[in-house]
């Protein structure tokens, strides 16, 4: 796809997409959030961003520094446990000797419980934890932020793998036709009846679940849908005159596929992709909700919803507001983008004959 030159029609479509404002702005907002989420570790973390201590600069975000580094000690007299940067900041500010700590905006990570409250968690939102804490005393905002990053990149990776494989297989089916098409189509029919959830649960008992394993398992099922569209597109396009013309000029198969057919089959791919992202996010959330997604304590929206819906937390509103709004907003943004793309790519606008 990368090698394709944008033809005038595609350019026109892009211009049209930009003109549909709700879609375009959604795209901008989502892109900004996604880029921002890449820097989550600098936004919500109990590790400092920069520490200047005794003339040395430390960047602890991705590096373990023990207490000894900063002449700290915990209540057991240990100095090899991880440095406490909040306490360090307080100490250095008080000492005022030119040493300093730059903490992230939210000085909590999504894992460490904060038990510095009299009431047992979950604790309602306050100045310390903007979105409150969850039932383990972890910061809800931090979990939301890291959860967004995982969701969106998981969905993006899943959709990329799924659409690429689906496009390739579907196109081949449509282009080659014949025996290959018949056999592969039967295989797809069988494959698509496998109960996805049970396969995930089953595989989770044999392998240690993780981001990549889950991605691989879900990709096994994700590609199927795309093949249906690409197959029909190819079947239709390859019989059209321009294709026959190209063939009669002696165009090679490769050229035929990549130069002529694929660009004309892209509409379903482009329009379905945003909705596939929605599906990806929802699927991961659902799996996490059931407990068969990413292993605890990975910050995840599904796990947050599970907490919010448990009977013990029925009256803890902040636990449900945060993940539900986050999911609704994200899905809304993606859906708006998808819908605008679909509108921009709508072939009816170019129809001369009605």
């Amino acid at each position, binding site marked *: 796809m990368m090698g394709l030159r944008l033809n005038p029609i595609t350019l026109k479509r892009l211009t049209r997409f930009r003109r549909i404002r709700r879609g375009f702005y959604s795209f901008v907002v989502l892109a900004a959030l996604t880029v921002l989420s890449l820097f989550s570790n600098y936004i919500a973390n109990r590790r400092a961003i920069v520490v200047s201590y005794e003339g040395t600069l430390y960047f602890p975000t991705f*590096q*373990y520094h*023990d207490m000894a580094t900063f002449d700290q000690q915990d209540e*057991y*007299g*240990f100095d*090899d*446990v*991880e440095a406490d940067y909040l306490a360090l900041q307080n100490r250095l500010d008080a000492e005022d000797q030119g040493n300093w700590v730059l903490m992230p905006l939210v000085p909590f990570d999504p*894992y*460490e*419980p904060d*038990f510095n409250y009299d009431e*047992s*968690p979950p604790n309602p939102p306050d100045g310390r934890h903007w979105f409150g804490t969850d*039932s*383990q*005393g972890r910061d809800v905002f931090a979990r939301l932020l890291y959860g967004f990053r995982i969701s969106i990149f998981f969905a993006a990776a899943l959709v990329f793998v799924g659409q690429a494989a689906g496009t390739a297989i579907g196109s081949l089916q449509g282009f080659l036709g014949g025996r290959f098409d018949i056999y592969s189509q039967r295989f797809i029919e069988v494959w698509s009846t496998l109960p996805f959830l049970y396969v995930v*649960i089953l595989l*989770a*008992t044999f392998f*240690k*679940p993780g981001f990549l394993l889950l991605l691989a398992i879900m990709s096994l099922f994700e590609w199927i849908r795309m093949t249906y569209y690409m197959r029909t597109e190819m079947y239709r396009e390859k019989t059209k005159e321009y294709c026959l013309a190209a063939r009669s000029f002696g165009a090679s198969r490769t050229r035929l596929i990549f130069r002529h057919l694929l660009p004309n089959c892209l509409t379903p791919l482009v329009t379905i992709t945003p909705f596939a992202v929605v599906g990806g996010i929802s699927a991961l959330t659902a799996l996490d909700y059931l*407990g*068969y997604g990413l*292993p*605890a*304590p990975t910050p995840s929206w599904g796990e947050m919803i*599970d*907490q919010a819906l448990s*009977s*013990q937390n029925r009256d803890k509103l902040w636990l449900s507001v945060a993940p539900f709004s986050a999911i609704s907003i994200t899905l809304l943004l993606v859906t708006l983008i998808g819908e605008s793309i679909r509108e921009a790519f709508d072939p009816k606008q170019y129809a001369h004959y009605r």
Partner: protein
Amino acid sequence: MPGRSLAMRLLLLPLALLLLSAPVTADNATEITDIEWVTNMDDPPIGDPAAQKGGTFYTSMRAYPLTLRLVGPNSNDGFAAWKRAYTMGLSLVKRHPTTDNYIPVMVTHWSVQSDGRTIYYKLDPDALWSDGEPVTAEDYVHTWHMMQSENIVDPSINQYARDYYEEVVALEPYLLKVVGKSESWRPLDMFDLWATPKHAVTLEEGFPERYNNTVLPVQGPYVLTEQVAGQYVVFERLKDWWGYGKHYMQGVYNVDRIRIRVIDDNDRAFDFFKKGELSYYRVNTAKKWAEEMEFDAIKKGWAHRKRLFIDYPQGVYGFAMNLEKPIFQHKDFRKAIQYLFNFQEINEKLMANAYYQQVSAFTGTEYENRDLVPYGFDPRKAREHLRAAGFEKRGEDGILVDADGNRASFTLSYGSKGLERHMTVVKQTFQRFGVEMELRLLEPGTNFRNGLEREFEMTIVGRTAGLYPAPYQYFSSELKETKNNNNVWAFGTAHTDSLIDVYRFDTDKEQRVAAMYELDAIIQDEAFYVPFWQAPFIRFLYTDAIVFPEFLFPKRTEQLTDWQVFWIDEQRAERLEKAMAADQSLGEDTAVDVDPYLVKDRIEAALRAAAAR
């Protein structure tokens, strides 16, 4: 000790051979002439003789019973407890729920022979089926035949019959002989039986279908009178039940009607109780108990809550380390884990301080070694042990590494999502001190099976317990060699085996207790089992119409409805109805925590003493 147990077995061998070769169908009359009959009429009645009979008790169950049979497909569901306690499953001889002594139920006398497996019972001639027929020895033989029959389609009962009973003989209409498969020091518990009405039950093919919903004659105090599929069942009390005249049966089974409604969701059942539609509700979570008890009916005195401290064994519950895995082969590493487990923090922050730490592997039994000191959270000691295990340096990610580059890391498999929030907190604590514990939630059945198969590094075991510990199935080295058993940790030495043998075969209780205390201490020292917490109480809510005897309830209460020592006071019921109709407050409150057997005191004192040591 091993020598001793061998000698004991050698001594028993000829005896066993003699017994096996003895003609069992010999002249019955001569066999029973020199029997020394035993009974016990000296203990207090189980209930309060002043209890009133009458009233209706409303309660709930999770699912509608699939069958009324006691054996066969689907018979072992939640409804089985009701059936056994109230209609069919009465024991021959039972332990008094408060004194633990044996008391007659369906018999007048019994006699245990010196072989530890032959028992004679003199059946109570007063005992009648609800259709008026007498309960005879033939009815017990019929049960034995039923248990063996393939027509009942219940392989586990068939297996049970094969494993436990050598023979069951009706010597005379009211004289029963039961011979167990192997000797036991508590044959009356092991080889107990219940009666099946021979005149009403045939064992021909089609048994499961024929008796699926048949209301059979009962020997117990209740008959099932109404059943509406999917909605409710009603038990009604037999006004002239033969047992009410018996010494021990005074003041038990007091309620006239028991209406059990199907409510599949626990929270919904709670809502029903709040509205006054249930007489009883058991509270299962500490959080609910701590936070949701201030509702209207409680404030107005229409309902009360109680936390009954009970003396009932707690079972094994905690982390199990797999000794077959390299990481847990170093005892010091296991001890470090013990010292890093911060029960106090979890209890205080996540469980409203509701529970007590378990220390022993046999908590709540007579064989619990109460002198054991819990490890307790102690990072300094943990660090010493980690160093001794070779983990001294922290790696780049802050996790300890030994000289060979092995990380102090393992995976915890668990099957209960409800425990996840506790485990993530434990994980963070471990991580702070350089130990990585990865969490792996499995489907509960898979996790259970993986436990039996020892397919884990560390897992969470939770097993219920009977009155007597079962050390063989958890700690025997014989089971260590095979898989698919409860010795999940793969533990066992020749020495601990000899201790287990003392417990299993020695008839001297002091010897048994001493052996189990030693075993308990060894288990703690070997540190492969990190006991979690115990809940030595039942938390429940009940309406104001219910009255308890002065002693409140028997000591070994597992379910409040087991013996039903409470009763419904008609006047109070009327008063409650009026108060609810007029929305008036009754304004009485009762003590929430009740501990007549001083269980709480005992546990807290033991923990205090341990802390002081």
